[in-house]
């Protein structure tokens, strides 16, 4: 196991407290936790593609970074009145 895989494991584990915030606090805080989780998940994908020496996998991280941000924008917009 190299340092990139260790870092990916640490960051993936850090998603669990964010899940806890999602489950046990208000819906507003849940959206904030979702935003932090999006960053953590795309970082973990970056690290895994480097750790496994699979360069094409980095596209997943880039696509996920965009999609998670757009998803959070959509949630924020809907939570003004509708959710």
């Amino acid at each position, binding site marked *: 196991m190299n340092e990139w895989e260790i870092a990916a494991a640490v960051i993936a584990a850090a998603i669990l*407290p964010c899940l806890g915030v999602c489950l046990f606090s208000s819906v*507003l805080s849940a959206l*904030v936790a979702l935003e*932090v989780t999006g*960053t953590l998940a795309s970082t973990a994908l970056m690290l895994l593609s*480097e750790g496994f020496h699979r360069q094409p996998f980095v596209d997943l991280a880039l696509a996920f970074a965009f999609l998670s941000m757009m998803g959070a924008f959509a949630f924020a917009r809907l*939570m003004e009145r509708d959710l």
Partner: protein
Amino acid sequence: MSFSHVAATILLVTGVVLELFAVLGLVVMRDVYDRLHYVGLAGYGALLIGISILVRESWSLIGDKTLATGAVLALIGPVLVHTTTRSFRTRERGDWADGIEQELEQP
């Protein structure tokens, strides 16, 4: 151990620590507007990690795209925080600008 190996490792550890601090802040803070500050911080951790992979792999398929991913997360993060804050204020007050003058006058 070469210089780039050491530099990449330092950047990697710093990036991971920044992201862990962001999660810690998210969990510890009580108010949602306080929690929002840590979304931006997590983005900068991702940027440092992207740079560490770039330092290790130099300008290549993975180096370019991890830098792009880190830049996306670092740049869009603050915009996302601002948008989310406006939405929360609109949700609570009907209009996000409502009551700003009174808040600004408070010491």
